[in-house]
C-alpha cells in the first residue's frame, strides 16, 4: 500500500528566481515596469515598498498566476508562467488575504495538499498537519472554519498551509501584517529556521522593517512598479537615498500640510 505514496521527491533541490525586464499592464495602467531581479537559491529575499507599488502583483508573476506583458520570470531553468513548471518546482504562496478554502475546516485546509498529492497516509498527514498547527499555536482551532477565525488566525492558517506543503520556493505576501509582536517574531523565526533546515528559497513581501532587517539576506525596495534599490540589510539601516530613508523611517509630523484640509473641514 505504501508504494502508492510518494515521499517528497523535491527535497534537496533548490531553485533561484530570475526576473528579466518584467513589465505588467492592467489595461492602460502600468503596474510593473522593467523589473529585473535575481534571487539566489536558498536565499531569504525581502521585498518592501509602499502600498500599491506592485509587490503582490510581482509575487503573482513568480507563482505563475499572472502573465507578463513583457519580459519573463524563471524559477531555476523553468518558465514561471508555464503551468507544467509546477510539476517540476514545488512552490507555495501565502496570499495577502489568506485565500483559505472557506468550505473546509482549518485541518482540511492544511490536509488538502498532502492528500491530493498522496504524500503520506492519513495518519502521517494528521501528524504533519497537527505539528504545523502547533508551531503556529493553532492546535485548538483545527476544527474551526475560516469564517470563525480572527484576521490574525486566518493569516497564521495561511502560513501553516504553505509550510505543510514543504515547498522549495516559499512566497510570503505580508505574513505579519495582522499579527501581534510576539507572533510576528515567531514568523521571523520560522522563516529563518526553515532556511537552515531545508533548502528553501524564501521571498518575503513585507512592510515590517524589523522583520526585513533581521532575517533578510538581501532587500529590494520597489516603488511605483520599479526597483528603487537592492542591497544587504546593512545598506538600509542608514540609507543615503532620502526617498528610501523617509519610507523606512517616516517622521511623524502633526504639522504636515496634508492635514490642514482635515482641520478646515471640521470648522
Amino acid at each position, binding site marked *: 500500500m505504501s508504494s502508492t505514496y510518494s515521499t517528497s521527491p523535491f527535497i534537496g533541490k533548490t531553485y533561484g528566481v530570475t526576473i528579466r525586464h518584467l513589465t505588467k499592464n492592467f489595461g492602460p495602467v502600468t503596474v510593473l515596469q522593467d523589473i529585473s531581479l535575481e534571487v539566489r537559491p536558498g536565499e531569504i529575499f525581502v521585498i518592501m515598498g509602499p502600498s500599491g507599488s506592485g509587490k503582490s502583483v510581482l509575487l*503573482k508573476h513568480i*507563482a*505563475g*498566476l499572472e502573465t507578463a506583458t513583457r519580459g519573463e520570470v524563471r524559477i531555476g531553468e523553468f518558465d514561471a508562467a508555464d503551468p507544467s513548471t*509546477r*510539476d517540476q518546482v*514545488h*512552490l*507555495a*504562496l501565502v*496570499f495577502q*488575504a489568506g*485565500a*483559505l*478554502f*472557506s*468550505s473546509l475546516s482549518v485541518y482540511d485546509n492544511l490536509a*488538502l*495538499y498532502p492528500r*491530493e*498529492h498522496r504524500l503520506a497516509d492519513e495518519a502521517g498527514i494528521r501528524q504533519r498537519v497537527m505539528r504545523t498547527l502547533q508551531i503556529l499555536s493553532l492546535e485548538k482551532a483545527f476544527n474551526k472554519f475560516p469564517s470563525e477565525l480572527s484576521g490574525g488566525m486566518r493569516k497564521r492558517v495561511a502560513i501553516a498551509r504553505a509550510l505543510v*506543503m514543504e515547498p522549495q520556493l516559499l512566497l510570503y505576501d505580508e505574513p505579519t501584517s495582522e499579527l501581534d509582536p510576539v507572533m510576528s517574531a515567531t514568523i521571523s523565526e520560522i522563516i529563518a529556521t526553515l532556511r537552515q533546515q531545508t533548502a528553501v528559497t524564501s521571498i518575503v513581501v513585507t512592510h515590517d522593517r524589523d522583520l526585513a532587517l533581521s532575517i533578510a539576506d538581501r532587500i529590494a525596495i520597489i516603488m511605483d512598479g520599479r526597483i528603487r534599490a537592492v542591497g544587504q540589510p546593512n545598506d538600509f539601516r542608514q540609507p543615503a537615498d532620502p526617498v528610501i530613508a523617509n519610507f523606512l523611517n517616516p517622521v511623524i509630523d502633526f504639522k504636515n500640510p496634508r492635514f490642514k484640509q482635515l482641520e478646515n473641514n471640521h470648522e
Partner: protein
Amino acid sequence: MKQLTAVIDHIGSAVLLLVRSLKFVPTLPRQFPRFIEQCYLIGYTTLPIVTILSFFIGSVLALQSGYSMENFGAKQFIGTLVGLSMTRELGPVMVAILLAGRVGSAITAELASMKVYQEIDALVTMNIPPERMLVLPRLAAVLVMMPVLAIIANLCGWYGGALVCQYTHFISVDSESYFAALKRYMGWKDITDGLYKAEFFGFVIVLVCCHIGLSTRGGPREIGAAVTRAVVTSLILILVLDYFVTKALI
C-alpha cells in the same frame, strides 16, 4: 459581430474546460467521496421539487386533454398523450430547468466566490487543477443522477395523470384503461430518447455553470451577475438544444 465572437469564445472555452476535465477521468475512483457528495447535492436535494412538479404537470396534462378530448370522444387516449409527452418532452425538460435553477445556480455561486476570493488561485499554486477537484466530480455526478431524476419525474407525471383521470367527474377514465393506453403506444425508444435528452441537458448545464463560475472576475458583485448569467444561459440552451436533440433523435 462583437457579441457573436464573444459567444464563440465562450463555447470554445467551455469545450476546453471539458477536455481538460476529461483528462482527469482516471482520478475519479480516488475522488469517490467527492463524487458521492455531488450526487447527493444534485440528486437528493432536487428530488422533492422534481416529484411535486412532475406530479402536477402530469395532472394538468390529463385535465387539459380530458377537457378538450371529450368533445371528440378520444378520452381513451389520454393515457397515451400524458405518457408520451411526459416521457419524451416534459419530463426531461422540466428536470433540466429545475437543475439549472437549483443546482446550476449553486455551482456557479460556489465556484465564482472561490474565484473572487482567490481560492482557485490557491488551488493552482498547490498544483491541484480545479478541473480535477471541482469540475470532474460534478460532471460525473450529473451523468449518474439525471436519468434517475428523469425516471422519477416520468413516474410521478404518469401517476398524477392517472389520479386526475380517475377522480375528475367529466373524465372518469379508470387507471387500468389509462395505463393500458399509456403502454400500448409507448416503446422503449420513447423512454430512452427522453433519458438521452435529460442526460445531455444535465451535462451541458453543469459544464456551462462551472465554466461561468470559474471565469468570473472582479468582486462580490460579479458573483451575483455570474449566477444570473449561468441560469439564463442554461435556460436558453435547454430550450434551443431541445429542438435540435429532438430532431436528431426522431
